[in-house]
């Protein structure tokens, strides 16, 4: 039986393109990569720090492209900078992203060219400190919508975003740093990957049996199952990868692919929960 008005959506699914979940992945990875870069620099492991700050810069470059390209007309991005709006997570996010990516680009530029090292290190530290906020704020952005699959998991969605970012940053280190210096990245990849699998379980529980269908059926469900295989494979490889360059790279590639797939799964779940009115109607019976 169709619900609502001829089964049509009650709320509109996003008018965004796939650039937006790509941004969630790249921006999340960049934030945590910058944090680990700062921590490794402090621990005098310059080799891994270098890989990670360059990874953060790559993530920021992809993010900037995605955010601007999704607006269709690049100059329109400047409209974002007209106001600072505390009620809009996107407005706050634009300033977080601008401060973060600016710092990362200075730090990475200095790392590559050797110019202005003290300034580079200062901005690397700053990016490292705000990196986790960069990684997690997007959960507030999507949570502050009327898509039931994003709106309802109040506690677990930020945890999932944090875990996916940690796994991504660790995976970058595994993929691009030599095994003898990638210990911290390996540990973060294992911890983040495991936390991602656990957070997703918790998210299913928080949603309950009816709402969880947005995540477990359709395209979102297919993506989530692929992500799970990739992530578990990545965690296993990373656990066995100590001192092995080849296994490290395999683990890194699997976890990067798993993280990206998981981001798309979450995104598709949000869209699915808007398209079928049953989710909105069920959600409204339990909201006071």
């Amino acid at each position, binding site marked *: 039986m169709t619900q*609502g*008005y*001829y089964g*049509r*959506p*009650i*709320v*509109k*699914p*996003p*008018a965004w393109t796939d650039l937006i979940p790509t941004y969630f992945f790249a921006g999340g990875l960049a934030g*945590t990569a910058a944090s*680990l870069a700062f*921590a490794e620099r*402090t*621990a005098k492991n310059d080799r891994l720090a270098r890989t990670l700050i360059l990874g953060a810069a790559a993530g920021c470059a992809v993010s900037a492209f995605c955010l601007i390209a*999704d*607006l*269709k*007309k690049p100059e*329109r991005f400047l*409209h*974002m900078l*007209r*106001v600072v*709006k505390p*009620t*809009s*997570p*996107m*407005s706050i996010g634009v300033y977080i992203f601008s401060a973060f990516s600016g710092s990362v680009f200075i730090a990475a530029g200095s790392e590559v060219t050797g110019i202005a090292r003290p300034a580079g290190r200062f901005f690397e530290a700053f990016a490292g400190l705000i*990196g*986790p*906020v960069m*990684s*997690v*704020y997007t*959960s*507030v952005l999507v*949570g*502050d*919508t*009327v898509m039931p699959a994003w*709106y309802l998991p*109040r506690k677990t969605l*930020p*945890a999932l975003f*944090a875990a996916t970012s*940690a796994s991504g*940053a660790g995976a970058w280190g595994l993929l691009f740093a030599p095994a003898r210096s990638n*210990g*911290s*990245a390996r*540990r*973060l990849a294992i*911890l*983040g990957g495991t936390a991602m699998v656990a957070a997703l379980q918790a998210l299913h529980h928080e949603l309950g049996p009816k709402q969880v269908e947005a995540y477990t059926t359709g395209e979102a469900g297919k993506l989530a199952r692929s992500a799970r295989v990739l992530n578990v494979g990545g965690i296993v490889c990373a656990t066995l990868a*100590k001192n092995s360059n080849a296994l490290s790279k395999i683990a890194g590639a699997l976890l990067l692919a798993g993280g990206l797939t998981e981001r798309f799964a979450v995104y598709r779940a949000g869209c699915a929960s808007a398209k079928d009115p049953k989710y909105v109607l069920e959600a409204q*019976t339990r*909201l006071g």
Partner: protein
Amino acid sequence: MGFFTDTTLCIGCKACEVACKEWNQLPSDGYEFTGESYDNTKELNGNSWRHVAFIEQLGKERDTSRWLMESDVCKHCTHAGCLDVCPTGAIIRTEFGTVVIQDDICNGCGYCVVACPFGVIGEKQEDHTMGKCTLCYDRLKVGEQPACAKACPTESIQFGVVDELRERAEKRLANVQARFEGAQLYLNDPNDGVGGGGSLFLLLDKPEVYGLPPNPIVPTKDLPLRWRTAGIAAALLFGAVVLCAAARE
């Protein structure tokens, strides 16, 4: 200022849709034939700011039937999700208390689309900005009423001061309740999840029958809680990073 849409008077003529398109110079959404009912507009979106819903209800034995018609429109919420989340300041509250998107400021980010509990706002494909009812802001400024209300032949769409419309809606409900089982007011309560609408409705069935959410809530209601939870997640993430870096093997 706002609308009171009294669906007991609506005859489904779609004059409001046409008047809106004409006055606001909105392009067509195409010529798709739904085959479901006399409604081929289907939904509110970036270029359709009034939408007449058409519902055929048959009795169990298929011996009785009734038609429900409702001209849907932006609700101009007291607590408007679209206005809250707009990152550019393009969406404003006007001197009339209405919610309006300024075309030249909108950058097409699309956040308002997913923040509207009613699915009102849509993307205008021709320039990739977002569109919705302005309650004819330009007409109000010169003392005219909105084009849809002006064109409505049965006074199903009434325009006026919101508080007066609320009173009028209460009176009308009392009047028709005996004749129409299931008659109810929608968005007339300033204490509901969106603080009441600047557009209120008298419906003849449950809101969901018309494709309206029964219990709309502005998403920004939970925003402080969400930032706190995200802050905790970010702190834990930082802790995890430090832990992984500190644990030398």
